[in-house]
């Protein structure tokens, strides 16, 4: 289970959250003018990287607010948390936190690396 640092409530267990999938997928502004291939890209195609993944989370059983996270899908380690609507912080990690801008929004919270739990050996069912 992931320990997810909600920017508003602090670290909370994953069962309080709902993952909203890949972040920064913008609905085309004028859907009627978008061709089938581009519409399919918006609806169905995903980056699915074995690398740093930008994704949306909802603290459903907490503050009920959305935020973005950068997570390494190979280790499941959460690298950074940032607000909805903010651009994706620079990668690769370690990320230098942006200095607070004048727009009143929180800048990205960078999570210091913690030792990864050793990956589980490849089990096999017989």
């Amino acid at each position, binding site marked *: 289970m992931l320990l997810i640092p909600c920017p508003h409530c602090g670290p909370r267990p994953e069962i309080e959250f*709902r993952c909203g999938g890949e972040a920064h997928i913008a609905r085309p502004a004028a859907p009627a003018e978008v061709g*089938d291939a581009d519409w399919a890209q918006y609806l169905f195609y*995903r980056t*699915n*990287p074995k690398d740093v993944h930008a994704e949306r989370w909802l603290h459903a059983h907490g503050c009920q607010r959305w935020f973005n996270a950068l997570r390494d899908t*190979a280790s499941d380690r959460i690298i950074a948390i940032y607000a909805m609507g903010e651009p994706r912080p620079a990668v690769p990690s370690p990320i230098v936190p942006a200095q607070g801008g004048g727009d009143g929004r929180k800048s990205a919270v960078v999570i210091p690396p913690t030792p990864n739990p050793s990956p589980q050996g*490849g*089990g*096999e*069912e017989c």
Partner: protein
Amino acid sequence: MRRFSLRTLVSEALTGHEGWERQWRAPEPKAAYEAVIVGGGGHGLATAYYLAKEHGLANVAVLEKGWIGGGNTGRNTTIIRSNYLQDESAAIYEHALKLWEGLSQQLNYNVMFSQRGVMMLAHNTHDVQSLKRHIYANRLNGIDNEWLSAQEAKAFCPPLNIAPDIRYPVVGAALQRRGGVARHDAVAWGYARGADAMGVDIVQNCEVLGFRRGSDGAVAGVETSRGYIATPRVGVVAAGHTSVVMARAGLRLPLESFPLQALVSEPVKPVFPCVVMSNTIHAYISQSDKGELVIGAGTDQYVSYSQQGGLHIVTHTLEAICELFPQFSRLKMLRNWGGIVDVTPDRSPIIGRTPIPGLYVNCGWGTGGFKATPGSGHVFAHTIARAEPHPINAPFTLDRFHTGRLIDEAAAAAVAH
């Protein structure tokens, strides 16, 4: 290939079992092949087997990053059934089920296919309507599936708790008697042995790092961790890592990879005669021939390649198992693991051409690919050999996500299965 038979077994028994040969070679990759299969799981090995067996293409390599059958082939819960709702799905899974029925004989390798019946439980009115709709659709497609009352379900599977006062009482079940389980490793090994005997090179510890394309844009070969291999045809069958491999060809796919967990109990005497699944409360269970109860859980909610999932997912499943089968609450669980499953938006696979000529893909089997292994390999081999899909996989194109002709099994089986 030395065939397995009673005669060879007796002769080996008399001579100290010293004459058994290696079941497949460990060849160095050649400079060029007629076709290259990327991924040495069940689906990839079956593809190579049928390329050689049915299409005369034996100058083929299967490139496997790790060891054959070490991914989802060795991690699934081995359930086999064909009672899918949509006509296209029913056709491909039934094609696979028919191949399963003769597979041990065809491969001369005991895949321990056991048609002990797959029973899917209904817990509420919606489940009843949904399962009955499946039953009627299956019968129209010539696939066996029948409705059981709760009492009949209990008679078929005596450990089942049909008490009316549990949180999700069993109100009935759909039973596919031809469904069952098989020994997953044997499927990979049997196909590997058969393909190798026909000349297919199975190259393990060989990762595909990139694709080389000719001036016409078509595939010319693959860069691997063991050198460049020229080939005009590449079939990518990389399951959870398909997006990673295809990104090396510059392609994005409508896939997301999630961890899917399973676990086994300590081995006990035969107590469980069939396969029981419940989509509503996310649990499925059978007993292996070794005696372990084999239990499958659902996927985690986030994209991951870590081959491990959250303990709360497994807990959720075990709570359901303990309610349906209270006597199992005292069993100890021995092992728990995860595999990475590639899920499409409509929960149906993608089997066919890609925008790059000569590059084919077989992916998106999501949480239920093991059951399709023979059928998947069979139609994918046809697709690669003839550069056009077999009628059974023709609807499973990549461009269905552009045209809108989805094969929507998401509502029908949106749970691990």
